[in-house]
């Protein structure tokens, strides 16, 4: 067959496929690739919940039965049950795997040794940009400062990126899981282009939301994931009733409180936008309490000028540090032991 014939045949084929895809769109059929992906992901999540929850509960029961084991390496889910200072906990009734709320922080004190810091965006994904400043640079700088502060306080710190690298959101979550981290803190900077007059601080934990502005923000932060907003929504629905929610909320609350009270001293107009739930992909994949802090607002001129100053970025890092310490010490003594040992 001649080269010309081959080309013509190929052209007919690709054209036919392009037309078929467009007809699917006209009929409202979801794109083939996404259909496959989403089904796979849901299946995975369903399986994961069946595997993880029994494991966690079995782990908890084992630890309680053995009175805890201080020599055990820190493992986020099991650790919840490993605290030796806890008054005796009633044996877990055998009610299957449908009661994740029993793992809430109020039931078992937390011990935090290992922290994963996630400097938002990076590499080919600059995040928000304003006045020549890139979100990825600010988050990395604050992340480095926070890493240093946490290390000095005796925490083990794992970072998702230590330079200007492109890292997929899923990979960040996987890294945190592989590191068996106790908490996950993702650092981001807001940009509210339509309201450049406002500036504020907000901290997120995972959950679904009906607030259109939050959906939009999550869509922007999840952009490089390749998922559509509706796909994200169904993903989140699947993992929504998870055991990390209460802990994540608590972590978000102390971080938000420390960020706001500390930064407001520099800027009386700074607004407290509070703790919110939103479906950020990076929070979906993590298996430990996880929050995403929007530590400032690049779209506001005054704040942008402040973010350019290293002293202000240091202040943000210190506030995050204080928040993490508060969360850790709200739990128990092992953290303090860690400080003495390392520091």
């Amino acid at each position, binding site marked *: 067959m001649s080269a010309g014939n*081959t*080309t013509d045949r*190929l*052209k*007919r*084929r*690709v*054209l*036919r*496929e*392009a*037309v078929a*895809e*467009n*007809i699917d*769109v*006209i009929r*409202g059929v979801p*794109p*083939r*690739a996404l259909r496959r*992906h989403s089904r796979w992901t849901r299946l995975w999540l369903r399986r994961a919940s069946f595997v993880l929850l029994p494991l966690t509960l079995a782990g908890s029961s084992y630890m309680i039965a053995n009175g805890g084991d201080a020599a055990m390496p820190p493992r986020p889910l099991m650790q919840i049950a490993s605290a030796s200072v806890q008054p005796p906990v009633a044996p877990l009734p055998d009610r299957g795997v449908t009661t994740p709320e029993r793992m809430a922080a109020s039931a078992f004190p937390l011990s935090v040794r290992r922290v994963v810091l996630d400097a938002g965006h990076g*590499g*080919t*994904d*600059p995040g928000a*940009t304003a006045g*020549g*400043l*890139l979100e990825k640079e600010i988050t990395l700088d604050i992340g480095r400062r926070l890493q240093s502060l946490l290390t000095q306080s005796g925490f083990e710190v794992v970072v998702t990126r230590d330079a200007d690298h*492109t890292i997929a959101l899923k990979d960040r979550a996987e890294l945190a899981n592989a590191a068996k981290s106790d908490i996950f803190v993702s650092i981001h900077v807001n940009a509210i282009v339509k309201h450049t007059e406002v500036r504020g601080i907000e901290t997120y934990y995972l959950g679904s939301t009906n607030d*259109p502005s939050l959906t*939009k923000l999550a*869509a922007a932060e999840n*952009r*490089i994931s*390749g998922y*559509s*907003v509706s796909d994200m929504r169904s993903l989140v629905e699947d993992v929504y009733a998870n055991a990390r929610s209460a802990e994540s909320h608590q972590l978000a609350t102390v971080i938000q409180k420390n960020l706001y009270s500390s930064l407001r001293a520099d800027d009386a107009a700074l607004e407290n936008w509070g703790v919110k739930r939103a479906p950020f992909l990076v929070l979906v994949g993590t298996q430990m309490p996880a929050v995403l802090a929007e530590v400032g607002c690049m779209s506001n001129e005054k704040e942008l000028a402040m973010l350019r100053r290293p002293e202000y970025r240091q202040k943000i890092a210190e506030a995050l540090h204080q928040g993490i310490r508060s969360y850790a010490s709200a739990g128990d003594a092992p953290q303090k032991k860690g400080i003495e040992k390392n520091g």
Partner: protein
Amino acid sequence: MAETLNVGIDLGTSRSAISASNGERFVVDSFVGWPLDMVARKVLKRDVLIGHEAVANRTMLDLHRPLERGLLKEGSEKDVEAVRELLKHLLRLVGVNGKSDAANVRAVVGVPAAALRTNKQYLRNSMKGIVDSLLIVSEPFAVAYGLDALLHTLIIDIGAGTTDFCVMKGRYPTEEDQRTLTIAGDTIDAQLLKLMEERYPQANVTLFMVRDWKEKFSFVGEPKAPVVVTAPVKGVPTEMDITNEMKAACEAVVAPTVETMLDLLAKVEPEFQERVRNNIILSGGGGLIHGLAQALEDALKAVGGGKVRATDDPVFIGSDGGLALASDAPEGDWEKLSA
């Protein structure tokens, strides 16, 4: 029966081009602006301005670039309206004059791959009612089709908002054949502006100025000549040498482009990898960066070498590809694609 006009449209983040079967070809800046108030409307004597006119009068306009960062922002009515205005404007340029026109217009519109991946339905609805029949495809695919490069080819289309990679395997590209980076022409602009602000803090420079300079002088590797530009410093036009800044800003796209290129190449079936490596096509505005093809070839040496060529006509390559698709599509298919 009404006369049929086939058109290929490249709806780009920075520029949009149209090629029509009547032989007309035009390119416009992808900017759409509406007068901010009554005064502006009176001065401009127009309800909407498009392309370089919009950029030139931007201080009086609510200016939109509808596919910024490669996506049509969902929920933004202004962006949808901007896309519609842009399409209508392009069609007017090739002689289609709205409802009164009796011609049957069939359009193939190429969009950034990411836009097509995330909101196909939204994109299609946004373009409803402007032409008689509509086929939307990813931009690198239109380029590949126009060049007859459908087999064992890698298209790297560096636009303003996105860099699209597409390996052509003799089929309509799937998710796994394509990648999108948001590092592209706009990243160079932002980087160049930042570097200039650092080096010449007194100079008054805007993104529009650095975009113009980039289009004239962009390079990676060794410069052909020093890059000297003029910008106001405290109101006084002043010459500045920005050779180093231009080099650094342009080279910011090299590493991620190389990384993605090598990653995609590694995923090609082993027996075809060499053929794909020797068939890499650089299109879009990025193809005009002096020395970029060479830099990519240098990087390919580590994996056995390869050939990268920039397209001869980066401006119309996508719209010409779209026109070729429009002309080749069978009559029966067009009937199913009414818009």
